[in-house]
C-alpha cells in the first residue's frame, strides 16, 4: 500500500499520466485507489491532433493497469520520508 499512500499525498497536484498506448494526459489529481486507478480533472492531452475525441474530455478516470508513467511536480517527493516508509513496509509494520 506504500505507493497508494504516496499517491494519496499527491491529490490536488498537477500530474502527467503517460499510458501504455502513448497517450499523455496532464491534469489535477482528484483521487486514486488501491489499484492505482486515477481520476484527473481539467485534463489536457499532449497530442490532440492524434486523439481528436479527447478534446472534449475535461475529467477522466484512468484504469491503473494501463498507466506507464506518472510525472509528478518537482519537490513533491520527500526521499527521506519515502525511504523510511519503504523500510517500515518491508519490515511488515
Amino acid at each position: 500500500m506504500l505507493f497508494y499512500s504516496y499517491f494519496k499525498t499527491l491529490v490536488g497536484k498537477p500530474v502527467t499520466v503517460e499510458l501504455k498506448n502513448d497517450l499523455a494526459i496532464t491534469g489535477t489529481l482528484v483521487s486514486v485507489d488501491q489499484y492505482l486507478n486515477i481520476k484527473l480533472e481539467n485534463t489536457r492531452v499532449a497530442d490532440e491532433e492524434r486523439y481528436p475525441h479527447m478534446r472534449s474530455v475535461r475529467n477522466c478516470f484512468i484504469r491503473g493497469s494501463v498507466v506507464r508513467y506518472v510525472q509528478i511536480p518537482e519537490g513533491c517527493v520527500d526521499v527521506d520520508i519515502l525511504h523510511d516508509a519503504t523500510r517500515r513496509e518491508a519490515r511488515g509494520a
Partner: protein
Amino acid sequence: MADAWHLSAVASLVESLDARLLVALRDGSNIIGTLRSFDQFANIVLEDAVERVVVGRNYSDIPLGLYIVRGENVVLMGDWGERGERAAVEGLVEVDNAEIIRAREADSAAEAMKGDILKRMDFLDE
C-alpha cells in the same frame, strides 16, 4: 474490503452514473455511452452505446446498443457532454456508417502495406 471500496477511485465513478461517457478501449476504439453500472474491476454497462470512428477529417457513430465492457479492456473513461460533443467534432465532417467503415479498412490496409514495405527494407539497416 468494504472500506477499500468506499475509498477507491472506482467508487468515485458513482458520480458518473447515468452520465454520458467516452470510454477508450485497449484496442484503440472509442465508445460513447450512458454509464448504467460498474464494479471494482471497472467492468461497465453502457446504454445507447455508439462507437465513434474518426478517419482523417471524417467521423461516424456506429450504433452498438447495450454494451457490457470487461474491465481489463478499459483504458479511460471521460465525461462527455453537449459542450464536449461540439468540441470533439470541430472541423470534422459526419459521414454515414458504411463510408467510415470503408475508410477505416482502406486506412488499415495502407498502414499494413507501409509496415510490410518497412520490413522488406530492413536489410538496408544492416
